[in-house]
Structure formats: C-alpha cells, structure tokens
C-alpha cells in the first residue's frame, strides 16, 4: 500500500472511488430530496433540478366581468394570476394551443377592442372601450418560472392519510420483541455448545450451521398449517403478534446461536477455570462472567435481528396477514406501489419513513454490525 500511494495512479483511485460513491448514494439522495419537494414540482421536473427554478405551464382565469370598474371612460378588469408567491411570468396566451404567444408586459388583442396585458409579476389588466358582458372570466394560459419550494407536506399527508403512521407502530410492535426475546434463549444454548462438554455436541453445531441457510420458503406452508391448526384448536385467531414474534425468533436462532457460540468459544479458558476453582457452577459462570463479556456479540446479533425483522416483508405477510390494520411498513409500501404507483410524493415520503429507522440504527451502531458480519459471514440473510 505504501508504495502505491506515491504513484500518479492515486488520482485515478480518488476519482473512481468518488464515482462509485456517487453511483451508490444518488438513488437514495434522489428519494430523500424528492420527498421534500412540492408535489406539483416533483411531478414535472427531475429531483436534480430541485434547487433551480422550474418553468411550468399554468392556467389561470381573470376575474369575471362583474368585477369590472369604469376608469377614464374605459372598462377595466385587473388582478393577479400568481396571488403572492415568488414566481415570475415569462409569457402568456389566450388559446390553449398557444400558451406562450405573447411575452410578459406586452398587450394581447382579445377582439372587440379588448386588450389583455400580463406583467412579469403576474398582475393582469383587461381594458375594453365598451362594457364587458358575461359571468365567466377570461382564461389565461401562462408560463411561469417557479422558484424551488421545499415542504414537509408530503410527510404530513402520508402519516395521516396513507396509513403509514399506524403501520409504523405495527412495525415497531413486530420488531422489538422479535429482537429481544431470542437473545437469552440463544445465549444459554450458545454457552452450552461452546463450553459444556456433552456427547453429540459437534453434530448439534453442524446441524445449526446447516439450518443457517435453510430457505424461509420451506417453513412457510407447514407453519401456516400449524398455526391454523393451533388457532382452531384453542379458538384464537391464527395470525397474531405472538405468532410472528415466535416465528422471527425461530428463524433468527441459528444465526444467534452460531454468532454467540463463535464469540464465546473465543473467550479465554483461564477465566472460566479460575472461576470454577473458586467453586462457581456453570450457571454462575454464564450469568456473571460470560454474559457481560459477550456484550459485543449480543449487540451484533440484536442489530442483525432488528434490521431483518424491520425490513422483512415475507414473514409479516404470511403470519400477520395483509389486512389494513396489521400491515407493517414494508407491506404498506408494496400496497402503495400498487394503488398509488404514480403519486411519487406519497411513495417517496413513505419509503423514507420506512428506511429512516434502519438507517439510524445503521449509522449509530455500524461498528457492531461490521463485527457481526465478520464473525458470522456464513449466514444466508
């Protein structure tokens, strides 16, 4: 490494890493920026233009002739198309096919001697030599450059209307117990496999390594049948939170046991032997020495399990159901993709709410995540 840092190639290295990082972060950046944009702007311009003013073709209507006032023998209707805001009108027209026939500030002939003027700031004036008739105002087509606008409206909307708020709570309900409950169970098992000699230990470890990669798909149908049977037997619904917590525990156990066993087996033997000489039993050793020492491995597993249960779609769809009240965030997002596929303001904000929790966990606990990956890289995900 030392030799190559002096080579002129180092600039190429910097540039290629920069390119790769850009490729990897741009999609997420696009989502985040889009979710904060005004939904009208989001639909007509790319997120990379978010900071520049966008040009939009808009339609407005002048006030109705009832609002006309007589001034110097002429009849005048005036008002403002933009009603505040910082936009600027660049061109306007009176026919849908020629929305920018006239430049801002010039006068357009509407016939019958009527003249329409639209200024850059959006103010307009219709001047007529005779009294104008009718109840509907003149339609005006105009091109306006709208300055960038960022808003939290999209988030407000999805949290209240699209059901994301209740799904967020559902996801928490699924993920937290599914993460905590397996830890103790796995830790005891891992200790037995690491430090207690008994016949068949090697075979058990091999079985657990094998179970690491068993596809979830194998478990779905038999467990669904089992749950239905248990539910019918006890007269309770088959799809409950308890059911999904236990399912997540079962699916997470191989990794938990494997990770923790590897970690515990690496702890120094002397600690345990000196404790044993002092008369401590296996139980004491485990609770008072091993468990506190294994904290890094426990943290690694908890992060894995939390990310996995939070991000899971399949298990939740099968064991919790797809009804409106029990949808977790991932399931809700899939539904929104189907029903609101074109509404990017809803999709981007929902997606960002879905990924924000794992991202916080990721950035704050990355150290443990990496350590866990390195010690358990046999796991199949």
């Amino acid at each position, binding site marked *: 490494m030392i030799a190559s840092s002096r080579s002129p190639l180092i600039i190429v290295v910097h540039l290629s890493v920069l390119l790769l990082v850009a490729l990897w972060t741009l999609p997420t950046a696009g989502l985040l920026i889009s979710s904060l944009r005004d939904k009208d702007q989001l639909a007509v311009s790319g997120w990379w233009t978010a900071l520049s003013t966008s040009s939009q073709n808009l339609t407005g209507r002048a006030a109705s002739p009832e609002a006309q006032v007589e001034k110097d023998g002429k009849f005048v209707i005036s008002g403002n198309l933009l009603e505040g805001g910082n936009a600027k009108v660049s061109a306007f027209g009176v026919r849908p096919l020629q929305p920018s026939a006239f430049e801002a500030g010039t006068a357009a002939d509407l016939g019958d001697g009527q003249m329409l003027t639209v200024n850059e700031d959006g103010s307009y004036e219709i001047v007529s030599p005779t009294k104008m008739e009718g109840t509907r105002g003149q339609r005006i087509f105009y091109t306006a450059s709208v300055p960038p606008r960022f808003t939290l409206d999209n988030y407000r909307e999805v949290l209240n209307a699209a059901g994301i708020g209740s799904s967020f709570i559902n996801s928490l309900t699924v993920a937290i117990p599914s993460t*905590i*409950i397996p830890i103790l169970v796995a830790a005891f098992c891992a200790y037995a496999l690491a430090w207690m000699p008994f016949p068949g230990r090697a075979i058990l470890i091999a079985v657990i390594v094998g179970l690491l990669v068993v596809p979830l798909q194998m478990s779905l*149908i038999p467990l*669904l049948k089992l749950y239905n049977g248990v539910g019918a037997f006890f007269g309770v619904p088959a799809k409950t939170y308890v059911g999904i917590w236990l399912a997540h525990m079962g699916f997470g156990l191989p990794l938990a046991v494997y990770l923790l066993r590897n970690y515990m087996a690496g702890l120094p033997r002397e600690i345990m032997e000196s404790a044993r000489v002092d008369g401590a039993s296996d139980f004491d050793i485990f609770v008072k020495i091993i468990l506190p020492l294994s904290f890094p491995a426990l943290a690694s597993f908890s992060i894995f399990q939390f990310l996995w249960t939070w991000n899971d779609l399949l298990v939740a769809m099968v064991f919790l159901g797809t009804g409106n009240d029990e949808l977790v965030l991932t399931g809700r997002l899939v539904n929104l993709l189907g029903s609101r596929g074109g509404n990017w303001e809803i999709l981007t904000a929902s*997606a960002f709410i879905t*990924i924000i929790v794992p991202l916080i966990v990721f950035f704050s606990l990355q150290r443990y*995540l990496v350590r866990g990956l390195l010690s358990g890289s046999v796991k199949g*995900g």
Partner: protein
Amino acid sequence: MQQLLFAIFTMVGGVLACAAYFFGTNWLLDTIFPSKGLTGAQASRNLRITNAIRPWLFMAPALFALAIYLVYPVFESVRLAFHDRSGQQFVGFSNFVWMFNDGEFRQSIFNNFLWLLVVPALSTFFGLVIAALTDRIWWGNIAKTLIFMPMAISFVGAAVIWKFVYDYRSEGSEQIGILNAVVVAFGGAPEAWMTIPFWNNFFLMVILIWIQTGFAMVILSAALRGIPEETVEAAVIDGANGFQIFFKIMVPQIWGTIAVVWTTITILVLKVFDIVLAMTNGQWQTQVLANLMFDWMFRGGGDFGRGASIAVVIMILVIPIMIWNIRNATKEMER
C-alpha cells in the same frame, strides 16, 4: 399505541419467563442432586449427573424452537410436495411433473439462474474493487460507510428507490427518472425499462447488487487487511506493479473469503422475493422461484402441494452450499 404497550408487556414477560425457566430448572437440578455438603462418592456422582443434564437444560428452549420452526417444516414441506393442494391426497410426482411442464416455472428457473450468474459475481467484484481502492485513500472509511448503507435498507424500500430511478415519462415530456433523463440527455429515446423482456431482469438485479456490494466490501476489506505485509513488500521489491500485486499476490490469498461471500450472496439470490414482488410482481417475464411459490401459496388459490414443491426445488439448490458450509465450520472447529 395499545398494541405497542402489549408488545412491550409481552416482551418483558417473555424475557422474565425465559429467565425464570433458566433459574428455576437450574435451582431444581441443584436441589435434587446436591453436590455441596455431601461426602466424596455421592457428591461426585451427583456432580456427574448434573453435568450431564445441565447442557440440555440450557439448550432446551432453543432446540425446541429450532425443531418447530426449521426442522419440522423441512420434512413437512417435502411430504406436502408429494400431496395434492390440500395436503390430504398422495399424488406421487405429479406436482413435479406439472412444474417442469409449466411455462412460468421454467421462466422462473431460467431467471433464477440468470440472477445466480450475475448478482454474486458482480457484487463480489465491486466489493473487492471498492475494498482495494478505499484502503488507499484518506477518506476511504467515509466512502465505505456510504456504499455499505444500502445494506440497512429493506428490499421494498430499495425497490421504491429504484423504481424512481427507472421512472418513465412518454417521449417529449420532461423525465423525472434519472436513468431516462440521462438517456435523453445523450439523445436517446426514453424507455419503460421494466417492460423490456429479458433485459428487465438485469435492471432488477442492479437493485440487489446495489444492496449486497457493501456486504462483500466489508468482509473482503477485512480479508485484504489480514494479508501479511511481507508478501506484498516482496512483490514490490521484485518490481511488480499495482495490478500485478492485486491480482497475483492479494487475490489468491483471500480466495477462501471470496468463496464465503460468493456463496452467502448466492443463497440470498435464491430466495429473492421482495424486489420482484414490489417492482414487477413477475410480469414481463421477470418471475422468480420465491415469488412463484408465494403466488401458488396464496394467490393461486392456496395450492399447498405446488407451493411446497417449488420450495423443495429452492431447498435442493441450497443443499450443496449447506454441505460446503458445514464442512468448513467443522474443519474450523477442529483447528
């Protein structure tokens, strides 16, 4: 809110129940076979008995859960694969015969093999390249974190992110998907990428590669750092250039790790489901095995026989890797 309280309550209850189980059984064992305060022969006899029983007490809850949630389902799935849609009537191999004559299944197998060829290879390749490059620059760790980040994003979230990248507007209107915007900027015509058969598979694969490269990078980066410096220094003295050092000295030394990364991603690819469901739901010839299985399980009217037989096919594809993993793990333990 109420359910969250219920969840926390159950969680505390579950943890307490676990603790009570372990304390309780341990206390029971020590009371029935006391070893303290007894004379020599009996104490050692009791000690032997408790030492034989205690590991199983420690492991019982975990083994019980593993048996119910993973071991039993494997056998039950194999049984169901030979039965009809309700699981009552034995039908021999007819589910498998149906499967291999079914166009959608063959499409799925073909697509799965495409995924297997492309995704592990490219993820590992990018991971290796990024790991090697970021080791040489001062902001390498920041770059690594950013590339590792998609790992935390759910497949569904990633699907939305990429659907936005692939978004299509008809020709002439302004593109809001960045891919089409780039294509148009270079004078091309915008495409609805998801609907181009065969090639759309690759656009889906990009999503998984995007997620998994970080994983490959983290593992391979650690492996690269573990390479003894002497070997690299010797090569430098012998006049090897950067590429030669990388491909002839470093890569051969981390073959084992590359294989682990490769197989781990391979298993993930075999089970890929969320991405396809969210992006195309198997339309435009993008069906894969896991999604097809889900279809037959629920939307196909709940045909458990066919669903289980597709699951068995996935399992059969995983078995070689499983055996390889077990062998490696056993070898490591003997060392």
